[in-house]
């Protein structure tokens, strides 16, 4: 299938005097890994926040699988299949890693008031999710961290747990906001390896903000470049890397 899973049409968003997004339109193809890059403050995180219902766009619209989703509440957007991670991770500080990760999968049976006291109703699902968590932790070499309280994790681990939460959400589209910031380079690479493995096996779509452009470009199919809230350029990694406007924006911005 080549039809876009996510479509952003002419979205604008201002914060007081700051124009964080200005008439941004883009598409994410189903089953792709799409990148979103741009200098700091160019509006990347704001775009994610608009897509996930965290902010309401001033104008423009967002479509997911052909359905208009801007204006829905964040929990509704999550439940139709868009998971996101935060640039500054928002883990539940006094819960353990395991509990943090177990919270991700959407539509858990045991999360209803009536079924919760009936262990039989949710125990199988619970065991299955716990298994997934265990495998994921092993994948990221964090086996022992499951019983650590989230507020006592190291910075890199926090970031990995945040990313794992995005992956575990049983979403169709996963938005990752700088997943490898503060993470060791080799770990970052294995994270991207895992992402492209998931894309192939689980038919997931990824939309990733990333500052390590060298790393990102090895794995993405398509890249969008934001600059001062506007879409500056788009294309395959090669096209973008050779676009003079992009080079200028990065050098000019630095």
């Amino acid at each position: 299938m080549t039809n876009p899973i996510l479509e952003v049409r002419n979205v604008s968003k201002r914060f007081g005097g700051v124009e964080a997004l200005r008439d941004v339109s883009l598409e994410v193809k189903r089953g792709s890994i799409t990148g979103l890059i741009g200098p700091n403050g160019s509006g990347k995180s704001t775009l994610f926040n608009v897509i996930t219902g965290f902010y309401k766009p001033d104008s423009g619209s967002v479509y997911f699988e052909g359905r208009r989703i801007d204006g829905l509440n964040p929990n509704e957007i999550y439940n139709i299949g868009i998971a996101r991670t935060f640039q500054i991770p928002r883990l539940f500080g006094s819960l353990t890693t395991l509990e943090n990760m177990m919270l991700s999968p959407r539509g858990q049976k045991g999360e209803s008031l009536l079924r919760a006291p009936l262990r039989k109703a949710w125990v199988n699902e619970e065991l299955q999710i716990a298994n997934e968590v265990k495998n994921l932790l092993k994948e990221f070499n964090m086996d022992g961290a499951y019983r650590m309280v989230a507020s006592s994790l190291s910075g890199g681990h926090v970031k990995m747990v945040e990313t794992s939460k995005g992956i575990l959400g049983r979403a169709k589209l996963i938005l990752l906001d700088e997943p490898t910031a503060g993470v060791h380079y080799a770990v970052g690479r294995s994270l991207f390896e895992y992402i492209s493995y998931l894309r192939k096996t689980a038919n997931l779509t990824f939309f990733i903000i990333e500052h390590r452009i060298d790393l990102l470009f090895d794995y993405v199919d398509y890249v969008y470049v934001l600059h001062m809230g506007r879409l500056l350029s788009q294309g395959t990694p090669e096209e973008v890397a050779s676009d003079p406007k992009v080079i200028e924006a990065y050098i000019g911005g630095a």
Partner: protein
Amino acid sequence: MFDIVSFLVSWFPIFSIYAILALCLNMEIGYTGMANFGLVAFYAIGAFVAGYTSMTIFLSFYGYNYPIYSLDAIITMGKIAGRTPWLNISVFILSLILAFLVAGLAGYLVSFPTLRVGPAFLGITILSFGEMLRVFMKHFQPTGGSYGLLGIPHPFAWVSDPLIKNLLFVIVTLVILILVFIYFELLANSPYGRALKSIREDEIASLCLGKPVPRIKAELLFVASGVSGIAGALYVFYLGSVAPDMFVTAVTFEVWSMVILGGRGNNMGAILGALIFSLLNRATAILNFIFLDLLIDPNYIRWMITGILIIIVLMYRPKGILAEKTVKTDAWRIFGEAQRDWDRITAMIQVANRYLKRAFHWLIGRETK
């Protein structure tokens, strides 16, 4: 000199009523982070619903049509309360159910305006709600205005020996306390309990993980307020009377201190807190009784100690006596963690189930295999 049975009879129902309230508040503040400063309102609603229902049913059953708050009604109740055991019991059960439903509904409705606002506004709104309800009940004639209701039929009024009557009531409150405890433990140690804790930690992040935060809060306020209503009903049947001024804000604060001292987010802690404060309560009552003409009312001292204790606990031991535990679900088994707490509860339920079956079979006159 010290009569253990009469102490038990007078202390235990109060303890279990407070323990139930503390468990409810613990679900709200300890698990979900909802600062319910108006707990007393739901307690009061339960109390008035129980008082109103039982008086009305009794009087109309015996064909009297006095207003339920009139002197005639009180005198009549004294005569008819012990005549029909089945009526007492069924009115008691019905009152508990109605108290749960009405108080729960009130909690659900109160949650509505506060879905979107932060803890400070929730605190103000619910606190005001509690105060307003008390003022309202003072002017509400059908439940006797500021004098309230008297002569509410004890569920075991038909038992002639007062000691046995009171012991039966102790057993009933104990059973209800255990049931509430088990229910809340089951709720807390489930994916639902985990979602509750995520709301307490960071409600926005929880919302972004698809948890319907406002709905969960409303549901929880329904359940916890409803159970507080049951506690109110028990209190009314224990005292035999109900009046608006029994439900001042200080009661809410007393329950808060139990939860803070015992340990937020730990149901055993809530019960421990209730135990400590209800004993402290008794001690001041005894002091008051022994030294009739004290310069300072021991109650003032007790309240001062309570206030200071809260601040000290918050500063030096914010987790309380019993610290919070992780959410015990089967997920830990995958990681090879022992499930002791969980297993204990399951075992408890199985035992209770067995006894219930046996009691049922005995009632219908059949042998248990």
